[in-house]
């Protein structure tokens, strides 16, 4: 361990008489100068799509190989790792035979040689890749983070969505996965489904040449994690229910369905691994039994809990009923901001979906709404991406026209980045 976790709660605790819904933003921060996990604690699996489609254009496989080599170079000495190639089957290409091997100048060189020999051929079945990664990581005895990078250029054609779903149910919580889509032939929703289940990120690498830097950053981030498998434990009072718990920043991630009961009126939600200096926001919505005006209630207690059950940090969500409307109508800027960010993400996703389905009216309305929200919350990055998909006439009112010709990469970039959020007052 060694990190200090703090939980800050942002909310307006004053509710009008009879109100049952309590909203709060929990800002969880890991502080301290704790060294990253001892190297022997961490494990990394690099999963490279070598299906037939990776052959065209030829630079694609070459870039993927190069990126994998950069990732291998980023592994610190002693971190155990493996390289898996995925087609409609999955195979460990390094180390040959069993499980994982500790990174050293010799093993890194041997791994890079194995990667250089990879050839593209066959289909795509990502669930099988994840199952193999799980088997390989299961041989790891260290207590540190287990992480995988999944690189693909295509769609999951050689297994059904149901099969993938069953696999995700089985392996979720056992390791985290960052997904990268190269080119524009992959499905954003498919990789998002995997990264959300595996508490990782998803992004598009439209140009294979960018892969190396991205792989280096991802591997470095994974190796920087100091504490693995931290849970957010929520206690709620009798008669209350958690409406939702969503990670709200740095990216959107709905954790509501990931609850496991851990005690009386208490449930745990996985948050994955944490690095020193890391901070995340969670939006909690609880429905409680309203009490009398003047009464004060603990609507939820949020604790960060280590795998061993130690409470690492704690925060309280309160509710006070009042007939003073000046108090109860006050809006928490943090809650409002994240509610807006979540709406921005869903407006983009729904707009793009409608556009794909040929429903121009809905697409225009939703993407227009997204433009307006991006404008209001100062999301210039998102506004720029939106402008490649729609012609913006007035950002303040969200008046837009759909562009007739949109580059696939632009559309996919907008879609994947829609779940990236910005925090209050952080520009």
């Amino acid at each position, binding site marked *: 361990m060694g990190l200090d976790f703090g939980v800050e709660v942002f909310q307006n605790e004053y509710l009008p008489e009879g109100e049952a819904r309590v909203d709060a933003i929990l800002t969880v921060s890991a502080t301290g100068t704790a060294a990253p996990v001892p190297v022997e604690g961490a494990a990394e699996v690099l999963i490279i799509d070598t299906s037939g489609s990776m052959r065209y254009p030829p630079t694609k496989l070459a870039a993927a190989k190069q990126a994998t080599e950069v990732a291998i170079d980023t592994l610190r000495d002693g971190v155990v790792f493996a390289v898996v190639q995925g087609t409609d089957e999955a195979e460990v290409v390094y180390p040959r035979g069993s499980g994982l091997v500790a990174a050293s100048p010799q093993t890194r060189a041997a791994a890079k040689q194995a990667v250089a020999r990879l050839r593209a051929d066959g289909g795509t079945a990502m669930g099988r890749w994840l199952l193999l990664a799980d088997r390989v990581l299961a041989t790891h005895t260290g207590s540190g983070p287990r992480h995988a990078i999944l690189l693909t250029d295509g769609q999951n054609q050689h297994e059904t969505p149901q099969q993938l779903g069953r696999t995700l149910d089985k392996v979720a919580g056992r390791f985290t996965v960052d997904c990268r889509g190269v080119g524009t032939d992959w499905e954003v929703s498919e990789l998002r489904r995997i990264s959300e289940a595996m508490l990782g990120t998803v992004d598009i690498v439209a140009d294979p040449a960018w892969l190396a830097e991205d792989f280096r950053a991802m591997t470095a981030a994974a190796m920087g994690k100091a504490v693995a498998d931290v849970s957010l434990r929520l206690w709620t009072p009798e008669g209350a229910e958690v409406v939702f718990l969503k990670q709200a920043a740095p990216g959107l991630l709905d954790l509501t369905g990931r609850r496991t009961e851990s005690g009386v009126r208490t449930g745990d939600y996985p948050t994955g691994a944490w690095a020193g200096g890391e901070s995340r926001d969670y939006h909690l919505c609880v429905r409680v039994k309203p009490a009398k005006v003047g009464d004060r209630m*603990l609507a939820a207690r949020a604790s960060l809990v280590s795998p061993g059950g130690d409470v690492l940090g704690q925060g309280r969500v309160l509710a006070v009923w009042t007939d003073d409307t000046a108090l109860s109508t006050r809006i928490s800027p943090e809650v409002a901001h994240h509610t807006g960010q979540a709406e921005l993400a869903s407006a983009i996703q729904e707009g793009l979906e409608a556009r794909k389905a040929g429903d121009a009216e809905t697409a225009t309305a939703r993407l227009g709404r997204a433009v307006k929200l991006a404008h209001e919350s100062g999301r210039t990055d998102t506004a720029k991406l939106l402008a490649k998909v729609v012609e913006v006439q007035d950002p303040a009112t969200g008046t837009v026209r759909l562009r007739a010709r949109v580059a696939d990469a632009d559309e996919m970039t907008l879609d994947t980045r829609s779940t990236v959020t910005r925090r209050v007052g952080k520009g």
Partner: protein
Amino acid sequence: MSMETCPECAAAVSPQDRFCEQCGRNLRVQRTTVGGPEAAARCACGGESFDADGFCGSCGRARPSARDRVEFVLPGLAGVSDRGKRRQRNEDSMAFGRVRGRGVAAVVCDGVASSERAEQASQVAVDTAVDVLLTAVQSGTDPEAATRDAVLAADAAVARLARPGAEEVAPSCTFVSAVVADDTATVGWVGDSRAYLVAEAGAARLTTDDTWAAQLVAEGVLTEEEALTDRRAHVLSRWLGADSGLDGPQAVTFRVETPGLLVLCSDGLWNYLPEPEDLLAVLPRGVPPIEVARELVEVALKSGGHDNITVVVVTLRGGHGA
């Protein structure tokens, strides 16, 4: 011979004993708990476990403060203090006592909501003042002088709660007291807590509020009716606390000729029953003081309970004191 027990240790004592043989307690003086009531052990939902911050482990509600509802009963006088339905805390306090064969003293203080730790201010004020008054009743001191001493002692005690440099939010409260001994009753007050006299013949208000509105009515600037709705109706012109600049209470003394009741209360009651006739109209007859106090508090709660409500009722026998 009637048997009594020591209120401290429950040992048998005789009515003539001045001190308990067992524990040494002064048996001539009976008074309410110093510092207010003990903390409640249970939540309203029945839960008995509370976290470190005082929230119920079952329903999540804040541990009910022992101050939320307080009832004290002594022979001949009783009081009820209630948080009401709209405030988060009960910032009113009451204390009273009796000296056997001599008389009784009672104090009600209403914490000023805009000040810090107002409930501490009112509790310290009633405890300090009732001590001074009971000592005076025991020694037969002039009640008006005792009332003045009690107010000044309470004012000084409340002033000591203030943080240096935070005068404008210094803990503050109002004050109303009664001393009944030797066929006379003395009422003293600072602020807008009130005393009423209710007898068979009728009812009367004994106090005039120390508020800007009351002052303007006295000067003929406002009518009573205008004052009630004026935003200055509750702005105090005098109070107890570090920034009070107080030189003493207002006070009245009168002979108790006929049986009746003395009612001390905070504005949480009189807001709903401002005129003596209003009080008389809802007053239950032929019941002990605690029932009278409960009923009056109930009237205030049913009328909205917008503020803390405190009512102390003292029986006036007429002719021979308490």
